[in-house]
């Protein structure tokens, strides 16, 4: 039995059967083909469902660990600093330490705390992304990168969830590049044919990125969540290119 010209099953029967009732074998064959096709389709659906469940689980996990990281950053940073400052100010009240010096010190500490809180807030969502869109936000991201990054993007606006996903992919990709790729430069390119937005992040680093690694897995989930796909091209020694293709509708 065949489907689309491909052999999918063999019906084994008594050779006499074909002679006695000519239509029977054919009828059994077509019913079996239908049953097989049904089974194949439902296996496919089961596998997709399994993947959706798994990615949903990973997204929840990623969200949890991200929240823990933010909690830790706030706790170890600004919170400690502010608390220590309050204690210091109260101690000074008791000991009558010189006010001028103390106030300068307090201002320095507060300045650092403010910077820490700002960096956390900007990491959660850069204002420029919602305000001016993907292109300008990517330019701002590139400006802060540790290696030269060229951005090829217009000022065109896309649906918010797509802009967010694309920005997230670019930001994560740049973090990975700086951390692992030993690259000297990177390019971010955004294109659109009206139906899809395609964002590609390419570097000239070591290549050999592990598509099964948790970092790329997370990006694939993020892109899949908006109905897109992420491909990884990372030949050893010839750089890495991540390409996310996301439907605009």
């Amino acid at each position: 039995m065949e489907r689309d010209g491909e052999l999918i099953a063999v019906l084994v029967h008594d050779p006499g059967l074909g002679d006695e009732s000519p239509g029977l074998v054919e009828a059994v064959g077509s019913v079996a083909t239908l049953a097989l096709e049904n089974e194949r389709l439902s296996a496919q659906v089961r596998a997709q469902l399994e993947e959706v469940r798994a990615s949903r689980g990973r997204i929840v996990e990623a969200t949890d660990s991200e929240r823990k990281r933010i909690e830790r950053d706030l706790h170890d940073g600004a919170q400690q600093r502010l608390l220590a400052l309050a204690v210091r100010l109260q101690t000074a009240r008791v000991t009558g330490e010189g006010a001028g010096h103390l106030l300068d010190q307090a201002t320095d500490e507060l300045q650092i705390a403010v910077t820490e809180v700002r960096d956390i807030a900007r990491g959660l969502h850069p204002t420029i992304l919602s305000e001016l869109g993907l292109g300008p936000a990517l330019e701002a991201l590139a400006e802060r990168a540790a290696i030269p990054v060229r951005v090829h993007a217009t000022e065109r606006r896309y649906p918010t969830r797509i802009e967010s996903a694309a920005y997230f992919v670019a930001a994560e990709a740049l973090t990975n590049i700086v951390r692992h790729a030993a690259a000297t430069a990177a390019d971010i390119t955004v294109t659109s044919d009206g139906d899809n937005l395609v964002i590609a992040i390419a570097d000239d680093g070591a290549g050999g990125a592990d598509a099964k690694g948790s970092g790329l897995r997370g990006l694939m989930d993020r892109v899949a969540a908006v109905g897109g796909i992420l491909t990884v091209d990372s030949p050893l020694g010839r750089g890495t290119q991540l390409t996310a293709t996301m439907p605009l509708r």
Partner: protein
Amino acid sequence: MTEPIRIVLAEDAVLFREAIAGSLGAAGFDVVGQAADPDTLARLVEAEHPDVAIVDVRMPPTYRTEGLEAAQRLRRQHPGLGILVLSQYLETRYAADLLRDNAAGIGYLLKDRVMRVADLADAVRRVAAGATVIDPELVARLLGRPRAHTPLDELTAREREILGLMAEGRSNRGIAEHLVLDPKTVEGHVTQIFAKLGLEPTSEVHRRVVAVITYLRSERD
């Protein structure tokens, strides 16, 4: 004694606004009005004719960049008004947008600068006098941005330092004072820098800021 500089302050966070108003008052400025939204700001500027408006980027109704747009509108309606924009985040794109039409009397500073009264007072005075003031952190980011080979590599450490001060809006005299150099020496450096970067020399400080910022932003190795 000269008249104190008159300021209108627009910021929607009351706590923060009152604090700045207090500190500006203590520094000898006259805060003649406070606004929590762009419309009130516009009315106050009409009514009070201040020397300087200090405007927060993020204001109602959407808390995005209303303040920035309000600043640009005020700019068109009151060309003589000094405008100091304060922002929680520094984006070079916003600086470029603000400076585009006419950079004289425009400032763009990180909100944190208000913590140092002397820095804030200096910025207000410069903006009131028609100078351009760009936050040093933004300039440092632009200058420090990693690049492949660029004409910036040709600059000496001193020239780089002076380029940064130019981008912050300092005049040659200001740079000379800051670095404790002879103004003639600074002039020489400035000429060198413009030649090395292939920039059209300009004596007007605010035009120079725009030229340098544009150069640093557009420079893509």
